């Protein structure tokens, strides 16, 4: 239980607070496209991933078909497969039943993933799952609170402040990832991802992150092997 609260409290620290600042913007966006507050709060519970929430809210507001929306959301969520694979070694040393693992991986998303990779190695193996659950619940409560705060604020925040809040999120992701990266392959992957993604975005919108991951990750893996040899 202590590990749970430690995880939850850690999500009221710097990288997580930056995410919440960005989520104020999501709350405002949800109101602008016509969602009720209840619907705006349901999306982070179901999805736990900011880009997918924006994609789904946008599709619903425009009256897109259910299948088109599900496909668009699913494409943004493919990245969770490799991300979950990477975090699993830290989550399987517990004594509970295996389905607990399927529950806690719901919290895999960029911030929780980076925070998990930063913090899980410092916790004893048997409490890591509970610690991770605490991290996830901490992020979810913070997310819901800032969605509810951002919702009524739509259109009242000055542009420069909104832009600054939005800008901190990618910068924090990038720096936290550099901080957590261990191997040569990780370093190469970060550089390759940054370079490839803008081109992939232009040429293959919708599939851009997938292509970036496969091309950049494979290139980084090859370069990493070559440097080790």
């Amino acid at each position: 239980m202590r590990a749970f609260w430690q995880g939850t409290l850690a999500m009221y620290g710097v990288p997580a607070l930056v995410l919440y600042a960005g989520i104020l913007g999501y709350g405002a966006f949800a109101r602008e496209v016509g969602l009720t507050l209840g619907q705006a709060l349901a999306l982070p519970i179901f999805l736990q991933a900011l880009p997918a929430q924006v994609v789904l809210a946008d599709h619903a507001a425009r009256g897109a078909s259910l299948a088109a929306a599900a496909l668009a959301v699913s494409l943004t969520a493919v990245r969770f497969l490799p991300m979950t694979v990477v975090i699993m070694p830290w989550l399987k040393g517990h004594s509970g039943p295996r389905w607990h693992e399927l529950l806690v991986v719901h919290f895999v998303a960029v911030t929780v993933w980076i925070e998990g990779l930063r913090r899980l190695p410092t916790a004893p193996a048997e409490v890591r799952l509970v610690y991770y659950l605490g991290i996830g619940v901490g992020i979810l409560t913070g997310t819901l609170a800032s969605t509810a705060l951002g919702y009524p604020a739509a259109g009242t925040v000055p542009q420069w402040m909104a832009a600054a809040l939005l800008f901190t999120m990618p910068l924090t992701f990038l720096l936290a990832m550099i901080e957590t990266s261990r191997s040569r392959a990780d370093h190469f992957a970060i550089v390759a991802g940054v370079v490839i993604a803008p081109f992939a975005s232009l040429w293959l919108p919708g599939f851009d992150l997938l292509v970036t991951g496969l091309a950049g990750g494979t290139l980084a893996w090859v370069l990493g092997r070559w440097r080790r040899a």
Partner: protein
Amino acid sequence: MSNLPGVWGTWGGYLPFFVAGFLASEPWRWAGALIGRDLDPNSEVFIWVRAVSSAIVAGLVARLVVFPTGAMAAMSAPTRYGAAAVGIAAFFAFRKNLGAGVLAGTLALLASYALLG
């Protein structure tokens, strides 16, 4: 009565959000959990998957800065790229301090926006 058009109004919107949201994304996490559980963290496959994940997240970051949406779209490209560069430089200058990097980058963004747009 619903605020959303067509099928999106069913059950106050919660049912379609569950189907096109949770059911469309969660299986990827389950698949990752099942595959990752039995994979050796020192194996080449694992190192490759980790590199793919890192490239995806880095790509997401680059997309947000290069093709900004919402309020950030008002900031010019030199302002966005310059602020990112200042943030990265400050991060390394302060021995990989996350707070220093984010603070310096954000201040650079606001200063550059005030001066250059």
